[in-house]
């Protein structure tokens, strides 16, 4: 029996909500902004459900949408969505100031800020979201052959900025993601 549009969307929302919200929280200073990015991203997914790829490509697609929403928000052209009012309130009240369960050591985060925006973004997608080059390419709208060397160079630059921990290459966080399928 064919799954209805509503069923498909509910499944997508349930599967990827935490990942999209996590992506937004890791890139915004205010939890309310992360709520907006999440609401807007899932609104786009609802309206363009026919275009949402299935399987392992879903999450990079959602990250790609969230990335564009975030870019709009950063340059001030983002109109705050009317959706997700309660989520904004709950998030503002619940996101802790500190946590043991973080995707990156503070020294690595500090070092990453010294890299170019381009290096930072590709590293964030790899280390924070645990994406492979192919998936990063989907998010950024680039090709894998561009992303692979870019990621490699960014990792090398990051290593250079972490002289106190030779050989201690930061590894991607282990999210509760479905098993990665290579491209």
């Amino acid at each position, binding site marked *: 029996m064919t799954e209805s*549009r509503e069923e*498909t969307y*509910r499944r997508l*929302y349930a599967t990827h909500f*935490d990942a999209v*919200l*996590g992506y937004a929280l*890791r890139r915004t200073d205010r*939890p309310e902004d*992360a*709520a907006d990015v999440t*609401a807007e991203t*899932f*609104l786009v997914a*609802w*309206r*363009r*459900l*026919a*275009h*949402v790829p*299935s*399987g*392992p*490509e879903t999450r990079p697609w959602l990250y790609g949408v969230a990335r564009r929403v975030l*870019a709009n928000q*950063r340059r*001030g052209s983002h109109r705050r969505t009317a*959706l*997700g*009012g*309660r*989520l*904004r*309130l*709950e*998030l503002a009240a*619940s*996101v802790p*100031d500190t*946590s043991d*369960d*973080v*995707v*990156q050591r503070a020294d690595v985060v500090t070092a990453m800020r010294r890299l*170019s925006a*381009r290096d930072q*973004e590709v590293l964030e997608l790899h280390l924070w979201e645990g994406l492979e080059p192919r998936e990063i390419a*989907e998010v950024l*709208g*680039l*090709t*894998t*052959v*561009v992303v692979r060397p870019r990621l490699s160079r960014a990792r090398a630059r990051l290593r250079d900025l972490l002289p106190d921990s030779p050989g201690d290459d930061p590894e991607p*966080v282990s*999210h509760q993601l479905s098993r*990665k399928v*290579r*491209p």
Partner: protein
Amino acid sequence: MNPLLTDDAVAELPLHRGRAELLEEIMSTSVLDDRPVRTDPPRRRTTWLVPVAAAAAVLALIAGSAWLVSSLGLRGPDVAGGPGAYRAILIAPGWTVDSVNADDASGELTYVKGGQQFEISWYPAAEYDGYVEDRRHITETPVDGQPVEVLGRGALMWFYAGADNPTAIRDVEDGHFLELRGKSMSTAEYLALLDDVHLVDRDDFAAAMPSAYVDGTARQVAVDRVLDGITDYVGPLIPPGSTRGSFSSAEDDLDLLGVDVARDVACEWLTEYADAHRVGDQARMAKAAEILATAHDWPVLAEMAPSGEYPALLWEYADRVVAGEVPRGYGRALACEG
């Protein structure tokens, strides 16, 4: 500052009502696009800046001919690949190149014919074990690949989501291995198609690609062509005092190469506007705005516009400057260098 919470930590946050309410709010909004939900993963198409003509058309017209095989010095299924011939192409009637992404270490090449697709990928030998292990898990229960022969060597075959999506990983040769993936074809069709795959070296590979594929010296020619198009509207290309010595791109796809070049020109003038605004130099601001106003006419962007998001983003920044707004965040959004 938010801690960089993991997704697991996010899942633990007490957001149940907000999360449920947002879902219902979204689903109560009108749907603009109600076509059937797609069940197949999409193919990311490389949209050729220049219509796939010349080489691809010729390739399609003479596909399968013994002449092409011999003129390109190709090594077919009965001949092992020579040194450096770890790339592969398909020469079969009706099959045409849809997209190509390749560098010296690895590459992906997609052919299409009607609703069918055939993808050739090559990777360094070091990635072989990882790929084989991964393919063992493409089914619910992990399975070893079925032994088949590809180009005179052993290979392992699996099936993605049903029997009509086969894929095979060929044994390592010359420091690389091939993966050949069919979509919407029977196993018999797929195995027959494997006989039409040929190993090629770098030069023969480039010769067999559509005209939108640029490599080596052709790349700089393409950069110059993009710049010529922009120069018709912009003079000079860079503001006085810029430290830029040249424009270049490492892309082998004309679309992406065009993005690189247009971005670099635009970034130069966005930066010029911001810098001039900082020191209150109205004349420099006016000049930068005047040049950015022409971005809508730059041929490389205009040709790309119907399919690409990048031109729209670049124009948005250009339009803001023209409207007198100081650009902010463009470096990150447009991926400007530096």
